[in-house]
């Protein structure tokens, strides 16, 4: 079949701006986008630059944007994104500088991975293997599946506005150690991850979960580490106060109390933050839309409260 592939080109050596180039190639029905790109490079245009190696979604080289979202092109069939022969647009990943064409500079990606001390820390070397449950190892398989392709980083909405954010890939990697029963640095790790640019800066937008080609679900790992950090006693964050206040509100009233949430998350000692809230509050009042001081409650809210009590004690027993 004939496939139409539009590729975003960039050559740092000729001073020209990035531009789109259209290619038309003859490929077989089950061809992947990578097959198509390789064919272009080998038969039509030797100047096209891209990274690829294994062709089997295990090496993590070939993450690029396909029709706007990051994918491993080796496991994305042309038919899948272009059932009627529509043009497929391929661009380099976002949130990375471009070296040439589809090749991105991954230095900052790797330095963030390095920043989380990505190796198991133990205080002693056992004579044999560490004893660990199969469940604990199988659980880690989920994050060990990460092939460091960068797709999650390309899509991360928090990184888009703040390049210092540790980001989904490095944080998922951090979880691999935090959750490893053999690692003896858990508390220190969580302390560091609790600081700014760490777990609380994730905006929970689910973009990383959506694009991850290996089902690593980085955001879920990040969220889990927030909880683990709290368990370790790291509670002096607005993130903690936010979660706590939100949960309390639901448990007490069955619904969210926005006013109290805002006040409590900001922190009652954070004067400038409180003034800020007051300004928005007064403006809202002016428009006649400030939430009522006593929140609208669902009927029989005590039922919700009872469920919360039961499940909270169940969780703390675990």
């Amino acid at each position, binding site marked *: 079949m004939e496939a139409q592939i539009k590729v975003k080109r960039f*050559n*740092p*050596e000729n001073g020209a701006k990035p531009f789109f180039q259209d290619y038309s190639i003859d490929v077989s029905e*089950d061809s992947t986008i990578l*097959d198509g790109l390789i064919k272009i*490079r*080998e*038969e039509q*245009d*030797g*100047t096209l*630059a*891209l*990274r*690829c*190696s*294994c*062709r*089997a*979604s*295990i*090496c*993590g*080289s070939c993450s690029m944007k396909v029709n706007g979202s990051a994918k491993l092109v080796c*496991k994305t069939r042309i038919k899948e994104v272009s059932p009627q022969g529509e043009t497929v647009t391929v661009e380099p990943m976002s949130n990375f500088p471009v*070296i*040439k*064409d589809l*090749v991105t*500079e*991954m230095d900052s990606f*790797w330095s963030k*991975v*390095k920043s989380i001390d*990505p*190796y*198991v820390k*133990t205080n002693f*070397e*056992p004579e*044999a*293997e*560490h*004893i*660990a*449950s*199969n469940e604990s*190892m*199988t659980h*880690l*398989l989920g994050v*060990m*599946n990460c*092939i*460091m392709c960068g797709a999650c980083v390309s899509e991360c909405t928090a990184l888009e506005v703040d390049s210092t954010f540790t980001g989904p890939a490095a944080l998922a990697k951090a979880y691999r150690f935090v959750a*490893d029963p*053999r690692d003896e640095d858990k508390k220190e790790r969580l302390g560091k991850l609790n600081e700014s640019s760490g777990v609380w800066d994730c905006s929970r937008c689910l973009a990383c979960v959506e694009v991850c080609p290996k089902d690593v679900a980085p955001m879920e790992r990040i969220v889990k580490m927030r909880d683990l950090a709290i368990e370790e006693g790291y509670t002096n964050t607005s993130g903690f106060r936010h979660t706590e206040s939100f949960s309390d509100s639901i448990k007490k009233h069955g619904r969210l109390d926005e006013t109290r949430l805002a006040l409590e998350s900001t922190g009652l000692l954070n004067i400038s933050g409180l003034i800020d809230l007051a300004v928005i509050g007064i403006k809202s009042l002016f428009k006649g839309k400030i939430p009522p001081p006593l929140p609208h409650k669902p009927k029989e809210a005590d039922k919700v409260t009872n469920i919360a009590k039961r499940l909270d004690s169940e969780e703390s027993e675990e």
Partner: protein
Amino acid sequence: MSKHDLLIIGAGLAGLRAAVEGVRQGLNVAVITKVHPVRSHSNAAQGGINAALTDRGDDWEDHALATIKGSDYLADQDAVEVMCREAGEAIIELENMGVIFSRDEEGKLGTRAFGGQKKARTYFVGAITGSALLHVLYEQSVKYNLHIYEEWFVTKLIKQDGKIAGAIAFDIKTGQMELITAKAVVLATGGAGRVFEPSTNALICTGDGLSLAMQVGAPLMDTEMIQYHPTTLAGNGILLSEAARGDGAYLINSEGDRFMEKYAPDYMELASRDVVSRAEQTEIDEGRGVDGCVYLDLRHLGKKFIEERLGYLQEVALEFRGIDLSESPIPIKPGMHYIMGGIKTDLNGATNIPGLYAAGECANVSVHGANRLGANSLLDTIVFGRRAAVDSVEYIKSAGSLNVDERELSKEKSRIQNILDRPKGMRSAELRNKMGTAMTKGIGVWRDKDSITEAITKMKNLRGQLPNVFIENKGKVFNTDLVSYLELEFMVDVAESICHGADKRLESRGAHFRTDMKSRNDSDWLKHTLVQFAGEELNTTTSDVTITDWQPTERVY
């Protein structure tokens, strides 16, 4: 000019294991790799890593015998002994580094069965063992703050007074070329699967180290020993791990029969890979296949089991073929997978060139002989990667200072520039595809005098056409067009060596099955083949196989 004690070329498992050891030994180590370390092809090993752990009643000698029988008695038995004795320690060390090996009910390391062995001694991480090991070794490289030339391409090894002195390489990102001196060099560049088309191997497996070694005078050994893996997807040749059969999957033909009963009644689907691949090919040739394939059948294992232990296989089957392994059998066929042959080394990875070492798939110590057992390749990389670095310590101490002639660099620069300056010609991919097809045809599961001779002629012809290849991309930054051509130059050396090895060996042994000489001939051919440059020509000789405790017997599965 950068200076190091030890330069390791390649950052897969063998390279990283060697590097970590070098740093631990106090050497100034650098690793140079054409892809980021975690992109290396060690990733693709799925099923596991073998070891006989003595504290749970296993015996290294049993592992050694299985390996030697698997090798069809071509492996050097002293090397096999080293590997199998050190395996236990290697596994425990990997676990301590952080590998998340599967566990048994007591929380100790758990095993799965693998081909060619009766005892289950394959330690594993789901179906991503190679990847899990590689990422952990990369973690160790971060811990040891290893110096890595990342995305650098080596074009040439440098010798001084007959000893190795370093390498010339360029930074793929900038095109900047440098002379990097080192008192010792470990080649850990992996396999050469792309010499064939199709192959399970990654696009980077272009035999760079084999050719680099040949160019400085090291011989390749037993290059004719090409492993065809029994379970590769038709079409693009992607691998489906032996772990499937280790965990109980069946092979069935178009009539639904478990045909291995005819070929290996005792071991069934878990006979050695060469045996299973030939069985499949026979079924296909005799008309009991479908579109050139037979089937791998996992249905009876159940969805949950498949997803937990063989998750990556399920992913590959679904993504590339749209097949749910718990619901239908998947068509597979033998596919080029591994080269048992490689740069001849001693038990410490040392080659005949002082200061030059090799480890992993590019090397041949020889532990795999004529057929490698599944899950022995990862072990090979870890054991011999470490040994090479250890051995280099003493050598480096005694090597004296290096005074490499800077003109080496300018000579190499102009060689590359001349290639870039070729005005026009054919594209390198065209030549590479011709090579791949010809190699698969000539040096396949079956081969004979005619097919081998034809392949030799074609390879000679291909070498003659190399100067007609032109590089369309003239830029410095990320010029993959140039890289592909230079890889093709390496591959032609390797391809020709494979053909010559195959031509030399006048018998059938392991993976080398000649339809014109169907039996093993121990009286004449308990020998290694050696291919080496003599001037511009390749010269083929033989050397004896080391036999210690295990006398060759008939090989029945």
